[in-house]
C-alpha cells in the first residue's frame, strides 16, 4: 500500500503511510498508543475508508468498502478487543465471522479439525462467555484460519497468554507463513517481534519513521525508534524491606463470577517496600484474588491483615481507610466508570483517602485538582479532565487508573494487569511508578500475565494455578522453565503439536 492518509476531526491518524508485505512474510507493525496502528488496520479491513492513497492486494487494486469485501478477498483479522459474543457458542461465533458459513454441524467438525491441526484445542459447542481469555483468542484465530486467509492481521495477540501458549501461537503463525500466508503482526512486546517477525514498520504519530529487520536490532533500539526518545529501564531500589504490611493466611473463598475459580487456601505476606509478583494464566483465580484483597469479596476477618489489623470482613472503603488501594484489570466498568468524566472517576476512588467529600458534599475543586495532578504526573494524553473515561485510549486510561491509585499515598497496593494493552513507554512509566511507591515503603502486589514485567519489577514471585498459590520465591535466579512449571504448564496444548 502506498501513501495512505486518514484524517479525523482534530487529528491526522495516518499520514502518507506506505509499506508492503510479501506472501509468507511476518511483518510487524510497531508504534505507541495513538500512533495510528488501529486506524491503519481498520482501513485494510474495510471498516474505515482512507482519505487518499491506494492499496493493492496480490497485484490487484484493493479498496474494500466493508469488511465482508475484505474477508472475501482473503483478509482476516484478530481484534485487540475480542469481537466475540458471550451468549453464543463457539461455532456460532465463528460462523458470524465468515462470509458463507456451512451448516453448524459441519462447521463444528471443521473447527475441531483445524483446532487440532494447529494445536489449539477448542470445543465448538461451549458458550464463549465461559471461556478463558486465552481460549477466546483461539476462537478468533480459528475463525480467521477457517477462511483460508491470504493476509492475517493480528492486533496484540499475546497479551493474555502464558509463555508456553505464546510458543504454540508462534508455531502456528510460522506454520501459516510457511504455507504462504502474509501476516501483519501488531504488538508492543519487542522480544516477540524480534523472534517472530521478518520485517518491521515503525509508526510514530501517524507517520512511518523506520522500516527495519527486527532480528538485526536490539529490543532497546526498536523501542527507542518507536518512542523517539531514549528509554530507561525501571530502577530497583536495594533498600532493605520493612515490616509485614499485608498478610494473607488460609484464604479460601468461592468465586462470585459465574464459572469462576474458587481460591483455595491462599497464603502470602508482603513486607513494606517489597513487590510480590503473582503470575498465572487467565482464569486461574486472579480476578477472585483481587476481589478478596480489595474487599469486594469478604472473608473471615483474619484471612487478610493490613499491618496486623484483620480486615477480611471489611468492605473496600474501610480497607482504603486502612491504606490499601487497588486497580482491577477491567478498565472500563470495573476500574473506571466508562461514561463518567475523569474528574468524577478520580473522585470515586480518591474521595476516601484524599478527603474529597465533606459532610456529604463533594469538593469539586479538590477533585479537579486531583484529576489534573494525575493527568500531569502520569502523562495521560487527554483533551481535558471533563472527557468521558471511555473516550481515552486503553493505554492512557490505564495510566490514569494506575496513577489515581498510586497518588493516594497508599501503604498497600494491589494491581491486576497494570500494563495490559499499554505500549512500551507507557508501560515503563507505570512500572517505574510502582517501583517508586515500593521504594517509598508501600507493599505492592502485582498480578500479571506478562512475565517479563513481573521479572522486571517483582522482588518475589508466586503463581496461581486453579485457585492455589505457590509459595513465593525470590525472583532472582528463577528460570522461564521453573516459572512455566509453577504456572501449571501449557494446559494440554503440547500434545497436539507433538503429533503435527
Amino acid at each position, binding site marked *: 500500500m502506498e501513501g495512505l492518509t486518514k484524517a479525523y476531526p482534530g487529528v491526522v491518524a495516518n499520514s502518507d503511510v506506505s509499506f508492503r508485505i510479501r506472501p509468507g512474510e511476518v511483518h510487524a507493525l510497531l508504534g505507541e498508543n495513538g500512533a495510528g496502528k488501529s486506524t491503519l488496520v481498520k482501513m485494510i479491513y*474495510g*471498516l474505515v475508508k482512507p482519505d487518499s492513497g491506494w492499496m493493492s492486494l496480490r497485484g490487484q487494486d484493493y479498496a474494500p468498502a*466493508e*469488511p*465482508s469485501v475484505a*474477508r472475501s478477498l482473503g483478509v482476516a483479522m484478530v*481484534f485487540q478487543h*475480542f*469481537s*466475540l*459474543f*458471550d*451468549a*453464543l457458542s463457539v461455532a*456460532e461465533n465463528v*460462523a*458470524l*465471522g465468515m462470509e458463507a*458459513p456451512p451448516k453448524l454441524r459441519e462447521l463444528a467438525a471443521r473447527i475441531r479439525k483445524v483446532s487440532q491441526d494447529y494445536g489449539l484445542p477448542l470445543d465448538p459447542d461451549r*458458550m464463549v*462467555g*465461559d471461556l478463558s481469555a486465552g481460549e477466546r483468542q483461539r476462537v478468533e484465530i480459528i475463525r480467521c484460519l477457517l477462511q483460508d486467509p491470504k493476509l492475517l492481521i493480528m492486533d496484540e495477540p499475546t497479551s493474555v497468554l502464558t509463555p508456553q501458549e505464546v510458543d504454540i501461537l508462534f508455531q502456528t503463525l510460522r506454520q501459516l507463513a510457511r504455507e504462504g500466508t502474509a501476516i501483519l503482526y501488531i504488538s508492543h512486546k519487542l522480544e516477540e517481534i524480534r523472534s517472530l517477525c521478518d520485517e518491521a514498520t515503525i509508526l510514530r504519530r501517524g507517520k512511518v519513521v523506520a522500516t527495519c529487520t527486527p532480528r538485526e536490532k536490539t529490543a532497546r533500539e526498536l523501542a527507542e525508534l518507536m518512542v523517539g526518545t531514549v528509554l530507561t529501564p525501571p530502577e530497583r531500589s536495594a533498600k532493605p524491606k520493612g515490616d509485614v504490611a499485608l498478610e494473607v493466611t488460609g484464604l479460601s473463598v468461592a468465586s462470585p463470577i*459465574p464459572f469462576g475459580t474458587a481460591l483455595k487456601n491462599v497464603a502470602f505476606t508482603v513486607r513494606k517496600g517489597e513487590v510480590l509478583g503473582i503470575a498465572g494464566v487467565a482464569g486461574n483465580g486472579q480476578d477472585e484474588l483481587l476481589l478478596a484483597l480489595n474487599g469486594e469479596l469478604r472473608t473471615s476477618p483474619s484471612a487478610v491483615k493490613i499491618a496486623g489489623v484483620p480486615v477480611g470482613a471489611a468492605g473496600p472503603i474501610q480497607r482504603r481507610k486502612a491504606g490499601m488501594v487497588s486497580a482491577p484489570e477491567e478498565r472500563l466498568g470495573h476500574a473506571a466508570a466508562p461514561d463518567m468524566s475523569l474528574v468524577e472517576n478520580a473522585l470515586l476512588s480518591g474521595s476516601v483517602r484524599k478527603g474529597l467529600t465533606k459532610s456529604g458534599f463533594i469538593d469539586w475543586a479538590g477533585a479537579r485538582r486531583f484529576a489534573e495532578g494525575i493527568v500531569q504526573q502520569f502523562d495521560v494524553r487527554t483533551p481535558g479532565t471533563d472527557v468521558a473515561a*471511555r473516550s481515552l485510549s486503553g493505554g492512557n486510561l490505564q495510566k490514569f487508573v494506575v496513577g489515581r491509585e498510586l497518588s493516594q499515598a497508599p501503604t498497600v497496593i494491589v494491581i491486576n494487569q497494570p500494563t495490559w494493552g499499554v505500549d512500551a513507554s507507557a508501560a515503563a512509566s507505570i512500572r517505574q511508578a510502582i517501583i517508586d511507591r515500593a521504594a517509598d515503603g508501600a507493599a505492592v502486589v502485582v498480578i500479571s500475565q506478562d512475565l517479563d514485567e513481573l521479572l522486571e519489577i517483582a522482588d518475589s514471585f508466586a503463581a496461581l494455578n486453579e485457585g492455589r498459590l505457590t509459595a513465593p520465591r525470590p525472583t532472582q535466579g528463577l528460570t522461564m522453565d521453573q516459572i512455566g512449571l509453577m504456572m501449571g504448564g501449557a494446559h494440554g496444548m503440547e500434545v497436539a503439536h507433538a503429533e503435527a
Partner: protein
Amino acid sequence: MDLGGINPAVLIASLMVASVPIMLAALGELVVEKAGVLNLGVEGMMIIGAVMGFAVAVNTGSPLAGFLGGAAGGAILSLVFALLTQYLLANQVATGLALTLFGLGLSSLIGQGYVGIRPPLTGALPFGPLADIPVIGRILFRHDWMVYFSLLMVAATWAVLKFTRIGLILRAVGENHDAAHALGYKVRRIRVLAICFGGAMAGLGGAYVSLIRVPQWTDGITSGAGWIALAIVVFASWKPWRVLLGAYLFGGITVLQLNLQAAGARIPVEYLSMSPYLITILVLVIMSSGRGRIAAAAPAALGKNFHASR
C-alpha cells in the same frame, strides 16, 4: 363434563382465542429485544393496529385486508420509534412510553367515525369432520385462521432465530453491537427491520382484538394487552416456545376470570387479574438466582443505543 359450571373443553378453546393478540405482540417484541432494542410502545402499536385494521376491514369488507392494514399501521408507528431511537439516538424507554401515549390518542381520533359499527365477520376454518371429534375437535379444529397463523409464527420465529443465518446475526447484534459492527454487520439496518417486524406483529394482534375478539371499535380497546405482551417476553426469558406458554397462561387466566364471574364464584376477580403479574415477578426471581443465570439472561445490549464512532 362440567367443573363448577365451567366446561374445560370450551375453556381451553376460548383461552386459545384470548391469547392470540398477546402472543402475536409478544413474539414481535421478542424479536425486537433479541436485536437489542427495548420498545415499550407495544400497547400503542397494538391499538393503532386495532383501529387501522377495523377501518380497513369496514371500508373494504374484507377481514384479510383489515389484518394487513392493522399490520401496516403498527409497522408505520414502529418506524417512528426506529427513526427516533436508531437515527436520532433518543432514549428507548422514554420514546417507547411516548409511543404508547401517542398511539392511544391517535387511535381514538381515527376511530371516532367507527364506534358502534360491526366489522365483517371472520369465520372458522372448515376442517370438516375433524371439527366433530368430541373434545379435541372442539378444542383444536373450530378456530379462525389467525389462531393457527399465530401458532405457526411461534414455530417460525423459533426456527429462524435458532437455525438461520439471519437469526444468528440478529442475536449477535443484540448481544454485542460493537463486535457485530466490527465484523461488518449493519447494526442499525438490522435493528430497524426488527423494530418494523415487531410493529407489524403488534398491529396484527391489535387487529385481532377489534376484528374477532370483541368485535367492534371502542376507545382503549386493547386495555393493557401490550403491557402483558411485554411481561410475557420477560416471563418467557426471550424464548419463543415459552412465549406460547406465557400467552396461554395469561390468556387462560383472563378467560378463567370471566368464566368464574359468570359462574358466580366467590373469589374477587381482582386477585385473578393480579396473578399474571405476580407470576411474572416470581419467574424473574427464580430465573435470576442460581445456575440458570447465563442461559436465561436478557440480550446483553438490550436498551443500549448504538453509535458507530464509539
